[in-house]
């Protein structure tokens, strides 16, 4: 099965180790969320997966093509109309102007961007619209792998919910692999098939959690319970610097997620292989 595979990845900025012995798999059709505190090396890991950084030690196999990356900020070109921004990746692939504009318009409308906004410059759009445009720019490529770096961090709860649903629907329809970075546990639980918890200094994966069922079918109540369950895990509390052991809330609410041991933490020696 095709999968983005990361094995024994180490990375350092100068003398400071940022990632140490990271292993992860993102198989086709799955959404993997990587949660961790700010500065734990999540973005570095994503940039390594996207090929924006060269791995120093370890191995990354990225068999998906095309892939697309959605950044923390929309990063639209301010001098291009929104439509041309969305069509940017298609233009880079060499698609003819009329055709790429048609595809871009379809993608934009599917994400709820109003038609008049497509002729406007990004600066004339609200933050939410800019995020939609950035998502459209990624999705219009019909990527087999979508890498996302806290893409919805700046949006309000309502907009975030809408974009989550749009993303999940597209993912279910196209079966793309998604690697999502976030520091929002609830976002991770809502979207992901697998949640990987990263700890900082140096960045490493310390826990792996699988929320129950398909992401599209999870209701709010289940997401809240799973988020609470995730947050009570000692590794998660330690990673985010939350004080003390988790409190039992006494109402006996039971979620149905599964904890799995993390191989790299159990066998640190195995993760040191490099290419």
């Amino acid at each position: 099965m095709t999968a983005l595979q990361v094995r024994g990845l180490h990375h350092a900025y100068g003398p400071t180790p940022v990632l140490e012995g990271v292993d992860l798999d993102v198989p086709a059709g799955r959404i993997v969320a990587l949660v961790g505190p700010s500065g734990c090396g999540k973005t570095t890991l994503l940039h390594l997966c996207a090929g924006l950084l060269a791995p120093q030690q370890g191995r990354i196999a990225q068999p998906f093509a095309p892939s697309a990356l959605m950044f923390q900020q929309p990063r639209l070109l301010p001098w291009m109309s929104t439509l041309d921004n969305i069509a940017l990746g298609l233009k880079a692939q060499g698609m003819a102007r009329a055709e790429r504009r048609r595809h871009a318009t379809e993608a934009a409308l599917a994400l709820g961007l109003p038609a008049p906004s497509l002729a406007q410059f990004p600066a004339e759009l609200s933050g939410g619209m800019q995020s939609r445009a950035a998502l459209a720019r990624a999705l219009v490529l019909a990527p087999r792998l979508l890498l996302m770096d806290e893409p919805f961090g700046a949006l309000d709860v309502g907009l975030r919910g809408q974009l989550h649903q749009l993303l999940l629907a597209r993912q279910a329809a196209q079966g793309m692999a998604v690697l999502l970075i976030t520091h929002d546990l609830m976002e991770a639980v809502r979207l992901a098939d697998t949640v990987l918890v990263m700890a900082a200094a140096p960045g490493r994966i310390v826990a792996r959690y699988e929320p129950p069922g398909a992401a599209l079918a999870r209701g709010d109540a289940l997401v809240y319970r799973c988020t609470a369950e995730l947050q009570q895990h000692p590794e998660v509390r330690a990673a985010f610097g939350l004080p003390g052991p988790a409190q039992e809330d006494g109402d006996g609410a039971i979620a149905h997620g599964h904890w799995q041991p993390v191989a790299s933490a159990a066998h640190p020696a195995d993760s040191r292989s490099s290419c």
Partner: protein
Amino acid sequence: MKLLWRLLRGMPAYLWSGWGAAASLLLFVALWELGAGYYGPLILPSPLATFAALQGLVTSGAAWPELAVTARRALLGLLLAAGAGSALGLLAGLSMTASMMARPWVTLLLGMPPIAWLVLAMLWFGAGDGTPVFTVFVACLPVVFIGALQGTRTLDHHLKDMARAYRLPWRMRLLDLYLPHVAAYLFPAWITALGSSWKVAVMAELLATSDGVGAALAVTRSHLDTSASLAWICAVVGSLLALEYALLEPVKRELERWRGAGT
């Protein structure tokens, strides 16, 4: 078609914005008049006398050929400098090493007086077009070069990463990523270079050639004809203003339309 319509629609507002410039120019003329009254016509002829002399030059048909010759030399030198300077500056801006190496060269070239280049150019090129064109080129080159270099260095690295992530080919990176940003630095540099191109061309002609505005100025000087000298100066400055505000400024506004968006 859309572009033409937008330009036409923007024309009245653009022309209307010229009133401020006109008012400040008229204030300058008033100060000139004041100075003329104080110093007398031999030192500083009044604006009216100057404009009359200029009109005489235009109606006699003496002005246009000389202006055309000077314009040809200034603009050819400017065009060469703008082309080479923009391209080289962009290339140098892409590389940290090249930018660091280029800085002292630019200081050196900017610090070298144009008159020194002119002397060298007279030795190298003789009395033809080559001398003024080369002097203009070498005087304008560092200005344009440093503009392009600064523009390239200041492009947001977030956008550069985005371009890499979306695998933009080099042609798209140049046309869709770098040039729109660098234009904001290039245009002021081109406008500065346009000004110095005319100055330097006239200077070169004064010393090195027998035609062009500079040569005409040399003749008026030898006749002690101050009003004719000022008339030639007005002709040059007028052409310069016309070029900048009728050509460069509208192009700049069109290319930088996005800057006004969303504010």
